[in-house]
């Protein structure tokens, strides 16, 4: 018997299965995800995702916090673009209260949301490329991400956990240096995206590693509950900014990028195009920014300015009432969805009229996407699983809540 045939017969005897743990702290999982892979050679025969390593019980905590106090917890959902979670949550509470927010607050929310979308896609595309082996694109892009974070810092005083929105508007107005830096960012980021495309889009190695990997049909994507770039890459032009506009998105001129096959390459292209479209939106916001209040003038919702609290009895009472007793909430339930970087970020609020929400449900966009992981990688190679995982843009903070 030759060595080859011995090896072959042994393989047939025990099936030659190997179980490999990917995660919970594997460099390509970007957070604490664990995937138990069952391998035959290098082919994946079974992949069992395990989650919950970052479960902090955000929904439970929300039931014991006031509506305003929940905002910092939303930062920690998708921590790559925390401002979009702030906006999504505050939009939900404002829908429950049925209050409009000032024009300038809307504009600034759009401006910062789109900045966050660019920053989030930079992380996703850059890190996906690193996982596959293309390191340079990541470095080119992260310079721009740094500028985006500087802009967040200018606006909110925080780089990652912004907590920038308040119910009814924003925490504060943007400082003087913000707009010039944003203008510079528009030019430089656009150039960096061109550089990224020169590095990857026509790169044959990138094509070999991404084309056809993780392909999904539009029907399957809808059935799996895909939203956001992954759904659009499969050819469904669903973008809540267009389909169910909020914050005045219907007044901006931008296009939805869609793909055809839903594979890793299409998801990459969709994200790159979305970055450009986001820059277009930011350009338009900067052009129409006008001075004005950034939070509603309603003492039952928003805290009065500090100087008034110190000098006027009325304002002091309002301040005290809001802090101690919270807002007067109507009884009812709302579901409000916004288009976050990963897809539809939904907040389902049930109010019994009390100071705290009776139930807060966060609908994370990446949970349904991640649940299709086994389906996506079965029969593929480990290297492809890494590519698929990166293109799904799973953020553990949002997945586990």
């Amino acid at each position, binding site marked *: 018997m030759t060595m080859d045939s011995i090896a072959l017969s042994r393989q047939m005897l025990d099936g030659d299965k190997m179980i490999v743990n990917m995660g919970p702290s594997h460099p390509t999982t970007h957070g604490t995800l664990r995937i138990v892979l069952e391998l035959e050679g290098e082919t994946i025969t079974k992949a069992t995702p395990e989650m*919950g390593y970052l479960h902090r019980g955000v929904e*439970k905590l929300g039931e014991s916090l006031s509506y305003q106090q929940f905002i910092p917890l939303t930062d920690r959902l998708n921590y790559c673009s925390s401002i979009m979670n702030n906006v999504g949550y505050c939009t939900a509470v404002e829908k429950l209260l049925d209050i409009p927010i000032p024009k300038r607050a809307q504009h600034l929310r759009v401006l910062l949301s789109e900045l966050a979308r660019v920053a989030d896609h930079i992380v996703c595309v850059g890190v996906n490329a690193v996982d596959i082996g293309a390191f340079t694109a990541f470095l080119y892009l992260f310079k721009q991400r740094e500028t985006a974070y500087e802009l967040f810092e200018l606006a909110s005083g925080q780089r990652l956990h912004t907590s920038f929105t308040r119910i009814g508007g924003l925490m504060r107005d943007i400082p003087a240096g913000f707009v010039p830096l944003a203008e510079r960012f528009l030019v430089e980021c656009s150039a960096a995206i061109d550089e990224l495309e020169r590095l990857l889009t026509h790169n044959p190695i990138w094509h070999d590693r991404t084309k056809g990997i993780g392909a999904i049909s539009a029907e399957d994507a809808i059935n799996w509950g895909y939203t956001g770039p992954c759904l659009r890459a499969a050819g469904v032009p669903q973008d809540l900014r267009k389909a169910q506009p909020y914050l005045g998105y219907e007044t901006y001129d931008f296009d939805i990028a869609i793909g055809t096959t839903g594979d890793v390459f299409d998801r990459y292209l969709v994200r790159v195009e979305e970055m450009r479209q986001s820059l277009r939106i930011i350009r338009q916001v900067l052009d129409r920014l006008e001075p004005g209040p950034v939070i509603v003038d309603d003492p039952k919702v928003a805290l009065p300015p500090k100087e008034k609290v110190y000098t006027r009895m009325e304002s002091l009472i309002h301040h005290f009432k809001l802090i101690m007793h919270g807002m007067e909430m109507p009884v009812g339930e709302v579901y409000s969805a916004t288009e976050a970087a990963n897809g539809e970020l939904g907040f389902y609020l049930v109010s019994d009229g009390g100071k705290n929400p009776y139930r807060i449900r966060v609908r994370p966009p990446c*949970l349904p996407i991640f*649940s*299709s992981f086994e389906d996506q990688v079965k029969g593929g190679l480990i290297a492809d699983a890494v590519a698929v995982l990166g293109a799904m843009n799973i953020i553990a903070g949002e997945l586990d809540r």
Partner: protein
Amino acid sequence: MIIEHIDAQLPGTVTDRHDFRGDQTIVIARGDLLAVVDLLHREGFQLLVDITAVDWPQREVRFDVVYHWLNLASQERLRVKVPVAEGQSVPSLAILFKTANWFEREIIDLFGITFEGHPDPRRLLTWPDFPGHPLRKDFPLDGGDVFCMEGCTAPYNNGERNQEER
């Protein structure tokens, strides 16, 4: 509009309905769920956005299982609520909608509601021998002393193990 369709084609299934801030909600019995879902699917409500539950311990029928659907063609949303009492189970939608699989596992985990015909009814977020269901209203916020409950193998007892175990 969809509610009228349901009313016309499956008369008597909608036990309650309301419209709050533009969100349409219908309440149906758990026995009618599969028929309604089938109709919704045919009517174009193909994106099952979310499944969650709400606990109302003072109510006789304790839980509401809440489904959110989106019609991608007309962008209409519909919320379907299914009241379910402690110990009762709801038919699983995991066969019809693959996305229901994990959402239902999450409810199994956090609320302890069972789903009939679920292909993989394991806990999703917490570990298999986790005591209790965290999102129930009677589960204490700090976890309480459930970690010291009888039969629990986890070594949480002010950092000390039980006398017997030593």
